[in-house]
């Protein structure tokens, strides 16, 4: 009997918390859900995204809100767990009645959230997903990131014509979906260009020893190394290359774009390059204003790519609401889809007919004296 009481108490507790979610109903607000991780392995993407979103919301609200209503950011922590993310999306939609969801910064969870959002006609605007097969999942699925399929061809052209590179070595981290996808994009983009892949090496996230791969690459004598993975492995790869006496540099996507790349890589990483859609190093006037405001609001912390993308996401949604004059799903969706030349802090954004964003320019950053410095603004055709 005692056990039955304990069980029913526990069940009661569960029910109570469920019921609690339905209680707060305010019709004078527009709710936007934040989908992302605040704890766990990918919290470094989720936390800044949320900070950027909150800043955008408070700015919009101070200016009088949208359609006479205030924007409220509803947040939840999915820990980077797919099952939990699905539950959170469902809760956002059926309990919180959000009009749109911003997130997840990672491709995998965006793909989990997309079918649910599409089914319920709620806009999902990912501020970070760069992988393939995301917007194809539905008409209500958008993203505001710089796409590798857009950036990589422009960069290859830049390297071939400006630096005269002919031979490139590719390194892929084959247990990292971002890296595998980016390598695919790179291989497709290089076809027909005056540049060949002379070495195609595989590593794994978490590897510490890259001597075998670098030895192979050294034998092929390439002009540059393209590494599609994350910064930790990136800096260790360059350390190994320098140890073996190689003079060439590395370049890669925004997976490498972290201060850790430099602090870990030290001298070895000098001269390596990353391409990004947002660069606090050489800001446009809009971006400079954003950086200043963010710094005053956040104790001098300099915002990065994810803060900027989260900020832009909320701004794009607010702007679309204003144009649609309604938060009715179909009208709202069409207004978001018609976003054109939006001057965001993370670049100029236009949504194409297939909901894919076109962002220009691409910022190519070079590491100089232990800092990211702008090397070139590469225009996108």
């Amino acid at each position, binding site marked *: 009997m005692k*056990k039955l009481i304990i069980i029913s108490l526990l069940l009661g507790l569960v029910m109570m918390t469920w019921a609690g979610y339905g209680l707060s109903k305010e019709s004078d607000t527009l709710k936007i859900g934040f989908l992302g991780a605040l704890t766990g392995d990918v919290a470094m993407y989720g936390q800044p995204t949320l900070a950027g979103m909150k800043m955008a919301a408070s700015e919009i609200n101070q200016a009088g809100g949208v359609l006479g209503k205030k924007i409220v950011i509803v947040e939840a922590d999915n*820990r980077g767990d797919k099952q939990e993310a*699905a539950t959170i999306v469902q809760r956002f*939609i*059926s309990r919180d009645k959000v009009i749109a969801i911003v997130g997840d910064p990672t491709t995998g969870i965006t793909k989990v959230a997309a*079918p649910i959002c599409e089914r319920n006609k709620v806009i999902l605007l990912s501020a970070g997903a760069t992988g393939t097969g995301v917007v194809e999942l539905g008409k209500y699925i958008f993203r505001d990131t710089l796409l590798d399929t857009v950036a990589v061809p422009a960069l290859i052209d830049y390297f071939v014509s400006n630096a005269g590179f002919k031979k490139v070595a590719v390194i892929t981290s084959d247990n990292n979906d971002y890296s595998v996808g980016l390598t695919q994009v790179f291989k497709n983009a290089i076809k027909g260009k005056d540049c060949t892949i002379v070495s195609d090496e595989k590593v794994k996230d978490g590897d510490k020893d890259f001597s075998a791969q670098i030895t192979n690459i050294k034998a092929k004598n390439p002009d540059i190394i393209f590494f599609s993975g994350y910064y930790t492995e990136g800096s260790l790869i360059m350390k190994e290359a320098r140890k073996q006496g190689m003079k060439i540099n590395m370049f890669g996507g925004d997976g490498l774009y972290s201060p850790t790349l430099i602090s870990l890589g030290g001298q070895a990483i000098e001269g390596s390059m990353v391409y990004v859609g947002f660069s606090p190093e050489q800001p446009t006037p809009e971006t400079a204003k954003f950086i200043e405001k963010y710094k005053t609001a956040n104790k001098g912390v300099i915002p990065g790519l994810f803060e900027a993308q989260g900020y832009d996401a909320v701004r794009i949604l607010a702007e679309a609401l204003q144009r649609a004059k309604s938060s009715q799903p179909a009208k709202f969706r069409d207004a978001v889809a018609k976003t054109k030349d939006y001057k965001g802090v993370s670049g100029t954004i236009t949504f194409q007919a297939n909901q894919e964003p076109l962002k220009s320019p691409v910022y190519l950053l070079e590491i100089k004296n232990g800092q990211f410095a702008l090397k070139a603004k590469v225009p996108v055709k």
Partner: protein
Amino acid sequence: MGNFLQNVVNQIDPYVMQILVNIGIGIILALGLNVITGLAGQLSLGHAAFMSIGAFTGAILTIKLGMPFGVNLLCSGFMAALFSVLIGFPTLRLSGDYLAIATLGFAEILKVVFLNLDITNRALGLSVPPPYSSIPLPVYVLISVVLAVTALALMQESRFGRALKAIREDEIAAEAMGVNATRYKIQAFAIGSFYAGVGGCLYAHFIAYINPSDFGFLKSIDILNMVVLGGLGSIPGVILGASLLTTAPEFLGFMKQYRMLVYGIILIILMLFRPNGLLGGVSFKEMVLKIFRKRTQPSRA
């Protein structure tokens, strides 16, 4: 029929439904591990690997062949069971904890294999379309849970179940009494993995996107947690464990970042005060009978 069931499902709040389906899938996975670890006493640390076999089999059958979902579920289960026999045959002939090591290794190998196969789309994972069936997915989950619980309850009281318990308590004594320990252990392992395969197939279609990295060591430990927390070998215990651990992130949500800290503390306290799990030693049959007796003879209560 399909339309009617769809209407019934639509009556339930989608958020509650989401949690209920998560619980259901958790129960199926945990019951499977319960057969292996709870009944037969063999520690498997690769339950998520068998789940991933079911998930990828189910996803590929739906994508490539458009197979009806009911058949698909069975195929996924059998595929997982097949692999478990291949792993179990060499390792379960030995006594001791070799299965734990073998399954641990198998899970890692399988993850690397899936990360390098074209049919599983490598590290990019698979987006899974809705199942080919007019009956909604939650109904399949409900039916699977009911079947899984019934089958396990019957199994526990059968000659087979008693043989497994004998092996768990003392393998040498069981062998001396004429129980073919190897055969029974492999059978238990296959049944448990079948459950995992079915659970994985349901998971894949419910979450709609799977990636080999989702089925790592931590997922196996999650499932093991459900079984141990609820009570090894007890069906009501496993159901309770699966329900609690699946909903834990939801009702601890108000604690924000400290949630996982509290979750860990709760687990430690529970293991200190109830080392056999919440409902350790509680049998499904006895529980049902108890309720039934109270109903028919209220004067004795």
